[in-house]
């Protein structure tokens, strides 16, 4: 294809940068882009448009830098670089984002390595699961600047690129993860660094010596625990040309290999090692950050000590009640606090109370593991069950913040669900974009439902009858090839046929077909401000009709309302969960559906799909009751952005096995609903009044 002419390029860039208002100069950019081939031009212009949809300044900066990068950087890296810049803009703002782009020189300096680099997002899933498989405390994998662990989280950089090839860089990430796991598993994190290094003139040097020794010890541990990985690590180190150990350190290596399990072995050698120059770390070694570890550890140890003793008290009480229920009326003070004994067998924990074995529940096992990692063993005093009221529950219980208090005092995102959002112009997700909370709906007037049922008396009766007929009932199938019983009619006919010399049929059996209707339905109800008035009434009435019908049918269903304002406050209102019965409380909640704010549909669909997928059913339906387009407060969500995000969220839902369907009363629905839901998966109801009748009817058609 012929490259674009400078005029064409100028026009494209002027449009992208909106030069009429921004006054960016495009001449220089045209000069750099003009000599490129058409393919490269298309690639760059594509990204210019995508970034400009987020921010024009960033796009301009990108264009200025990208050409010099193009020859030396892989397109995959350029893409990652651009997306990283936009993510930085989303989370930190314009200036840090421009900084990322200006650092293209850093990217260039490691051009080759970056092309083969292992990106955190790409390795995270596999390595998190890998980490979960290794024993010990549950650890989380996070992105950070430096490779280190704080004993609960492991940090890996955004890009790991110290090795030549992509495969080696992945291996490097894996080796680092395993190495940091070893630091938590084999006690490096339980050393009291401040106390241990206090006797040295230069604590920093002591730390360096400790680290070097500890690395040798952990290598010995890994060689024993994960021999396959250790072999790979040796290979990595050789390919990275790590320096060989000095003779003095080789002696330490041998000494530590004899009993590598405890960090005390390292402390014993520290004085001697302090005098030597520490060796350079190997490529996969992780730094020890005493401050990060100490901060986290002290808080955790205090909390776990309480928690373990409280949990043991609960366990002891359960045991005693089980053993002698008649004595449980004895006041608690008369009983001595229960004293447990714990023994570790491989990875399993065995608890004994009064010489009786007690099976520890999963959370106690986790606690025991964590405590033994912090203390090196389980101190006996921690195995004494806590007395009544010994600790204030507020100190160890996870506090749940009231979701309604979000905007009172300081804004917080604790306990909220965070969802990504699809930016169609960028053709990428905006990460951690929407903050969604589940909120209990305030019950409304309890008499409302009865009043509606009274008013629609005839309709309710009709619907119940239709739905009853739909119940998938068992039926006897005749003339089957296989079955439980001989179909005598068929047999007689077949025998007559054979007498006549005709071929005898083999369909001689009857088979009982049993009903197996395994269906779960999620109703997602629009509670935006635009439903105020009779739309809201119609929605509520429709839901009541539906519930009455579904109760006769026996399908599992849940009802949630959604609304919100801005991406920081997406709200889902619990009206009826799958487990709740259709009782007075649920009826009152249906009556309590009131119009709220806006409709940011993507996040709501993502959240409700997640809930729906936790239910075990053959067929899963997500039915949206809506009155218009996705929309949000002063936001780009109005318009194509919102439609595309909703479409993407529905696509994700479909991919996970959910069938979405939309019932709308928006007369313009045909303009955007086919694009979002597909041609057959939506229906428009022209008269609001008909909604209650239609919804149940549509449901019937959908599920038969």
């Amino acid at each position, binding site marked *: 294809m012929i490259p674009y002419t400078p005029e064409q390029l100028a026009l494209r860039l002027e449009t992208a940068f909106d030069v009429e208002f921004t006054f960016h100069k495009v001449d220089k950019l045209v000069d750099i882009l003009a000599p490129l081939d058409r393919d490269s031009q298309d690639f760059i212009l594509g990204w210019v448009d995508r970034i400009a949809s987020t921010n024009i300044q960033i796009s301009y900066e990108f264009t200025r830098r990208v050409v010099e990068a193009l020859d030396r950087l892989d397109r995959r890296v350029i893409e990652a670089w651009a997306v990283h810049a936009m993510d930085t803009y989303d989370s930190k703002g314009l200036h840090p984002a421009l900084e990322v782009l200006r650092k293209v020189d850093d990217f260039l300096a490691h051009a080759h390595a970056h092309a083969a680099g292992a990106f955190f997002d790409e390795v995270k899933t596999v390595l998190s*699961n890998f980490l*979960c498989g290794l024993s010990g405390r549950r650890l989380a994998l996070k992105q950070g600047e430096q490779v280190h662990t704080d004993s609960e989280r492991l940090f890996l950089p955004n890009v790991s690129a110290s090795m030549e090839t992509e495969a080696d860089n992945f291996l490097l990430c*894996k080796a680092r993860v395993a190495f940091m796991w070893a630091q938590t598993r084999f006690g490096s994190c339980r050393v009291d660094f401040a106390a241990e290094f206090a006797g040295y003139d230069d604590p920093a040097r002591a730390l360096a010596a400790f680290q070097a020794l500890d690395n040798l010890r952990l290598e010995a541990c890994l060689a024993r625990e994960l*021999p396959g990985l250790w072999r790979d690590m040796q290979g990595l180190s050789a390919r990275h040309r790590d320096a060989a150990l000095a003779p003095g350190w080789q002696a330490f290596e041998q000494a530590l290999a004899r009993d590598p399990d405890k960090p005390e072995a390292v402390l014993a050698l520290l004085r001697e090692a302090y005098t030597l120059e520490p060796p350079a770390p190997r490529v996969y070694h992780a730094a020890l950050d005493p401050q990060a570890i100490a901060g986290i550890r002290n808080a955790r140890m205090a909390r776990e000590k309480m928690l373990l003793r409280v949990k043991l008290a609960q366990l002891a009480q359960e045991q005693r009640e089980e053993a002698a229920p008649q004595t449980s009326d004895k006041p608690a003070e008369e009983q001595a606090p229960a004293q447990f004994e714990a023994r570790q067998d491989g990875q399993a924990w065995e608890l004994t109370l009064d010489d009786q074995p007690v099976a520890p529940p999963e959370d106690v096992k986790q606690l025991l593991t964590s405590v033994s990692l912090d203390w090196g063993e389980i101190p006996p005093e921690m195995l004494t069950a806590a007395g009544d009221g010994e600790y204030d529950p507020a100190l160890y219980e996870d506090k749940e913040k009231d979701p309604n208090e979000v905007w009172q005092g300081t804004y917080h995102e604790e306990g909220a669900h965070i969802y990504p959002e699809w930016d169609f112009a960028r053709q990428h997700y905006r990460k951690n974009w929407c903050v969604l909370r589940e909120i209990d709906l305030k019950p409304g007037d309890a008499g409302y439902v009865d009043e509606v049922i009274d008013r629609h008396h005839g309709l309710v009766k009709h619907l119940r009858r239709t739905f009853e007929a739909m119940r998938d009932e068992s039926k006897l199938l005749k003339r089957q090839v296989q079955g439980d*019983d001989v179909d005598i009619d068929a047999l007689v006919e077949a025998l007559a046929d054979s007498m006549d010399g005709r071929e005898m049929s083999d369909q001689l059996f009857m088979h009982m077909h049993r009903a197996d209707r395994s269906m779960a339905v999620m109703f997602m109800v629009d509670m935006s401000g635009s439903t105020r008035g009779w739309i809201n009434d119609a929605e509520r009435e429709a839901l009541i009709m539906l519930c009455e019908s579904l109760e006769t049918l026996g399908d599992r269903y849940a009802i949630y309302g959604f609304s919100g304002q801005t991406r920081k406050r997406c709200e889902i209102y619990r009206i009826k969960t799958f487990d709740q019965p259709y009782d007075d409380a649920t009826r009152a909640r249906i009556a309590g559906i009131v119009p709220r704010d806006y409709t940011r549909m993507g996040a709501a669909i993502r959240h409700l799909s997640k809930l729906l997928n936790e239910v075990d059913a053959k067929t899963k339906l997500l039915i949206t009751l809506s009155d218009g387009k996705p929309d949000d407060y002063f936001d780009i969500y109005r318009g194509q952005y919102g439609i595309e995000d909703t479409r993407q969220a529905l696509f994700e839902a479909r991919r996970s096995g959910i069938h979405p369907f939309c019932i709308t009363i928006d007369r313009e629905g045909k303009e955007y609903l086919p694009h979002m839901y597909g041609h057959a998966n939506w229906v428009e109801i022209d008269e609001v009044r008909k909604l209650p009748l239609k919804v149940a009817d549509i449901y019937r058609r959908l599920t038969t």
Partner: protein
Amino acid sequence: MDSAQSPTESHFITNEPYYEPVGNEVSLFEAAYANRLPVLLKGPTGCGKTRFMEYMAWRLKRPLITVSCHDDLTTSDLVGRYLVKGGETTWVDGPLTRAVRAGGICYLDEIVEARKDTMVVIHPLADDRRMMPIEKLGQLLEAPPEFCLAISYNPGYQSVLKELKQSTRQRFVALSFDYPKPELEARIIRHETGLDESATAKLLKLAEMTRNLKGNGLEEGASTRLLVHAGKLIAQGVEARAACQGAVSLALTDDDDMVAAVNELIAALF
């Protein structure tokens, strides 16, 4: 009563199956058998329930008839049905009827998989009546003292649909099975595969790792059976990583991320 049926003799187990008792399950089963009580085996898949039944059948010298239950298993599949043969209808006993007539052990594997209405036919057999009505023949079959009913059930499936009804479960003496302790599991693997100690230890560690992943992406950890499969492949000369990938990671899950993660665990060990 029909030549098409395999003779009950073929269900006798003549060679002692290899079985390592984990606890007191053998004596419990024998006591239940002596008292004509039906038995319920609980435990995750691949921990040795079926092997235990074979072993007990051999010990008690009774024929063992195993039925693997599936979601379309009907009452007729268990009790029997009429078939058409040359213009005549012939009655054919189902496996449960055969076991009752022969005084054997009928083992219904993974009973929760069967249709709910099917489970009810075992009720009169499973309480002190020990009767089996065959409606279509108009017969009431009384089980001989040697007859024994055993069912198995995996409570690990966290699904309400796969729960055993109280009316069913409360008729049985329950034996709980779990993965054997490490030393015992090592002995089993060594016996079944002939692998040496270090390779066995690695397989055990792999099992432990996958069991850590249970509930975090895996429905179940690797069972003893999978370890034996992997061990057999290794003993046959298959390269260890490939053997474990085939026998463990791909067998455990279809989820690409999880397969990759388990493969990384395998690569870390072998």
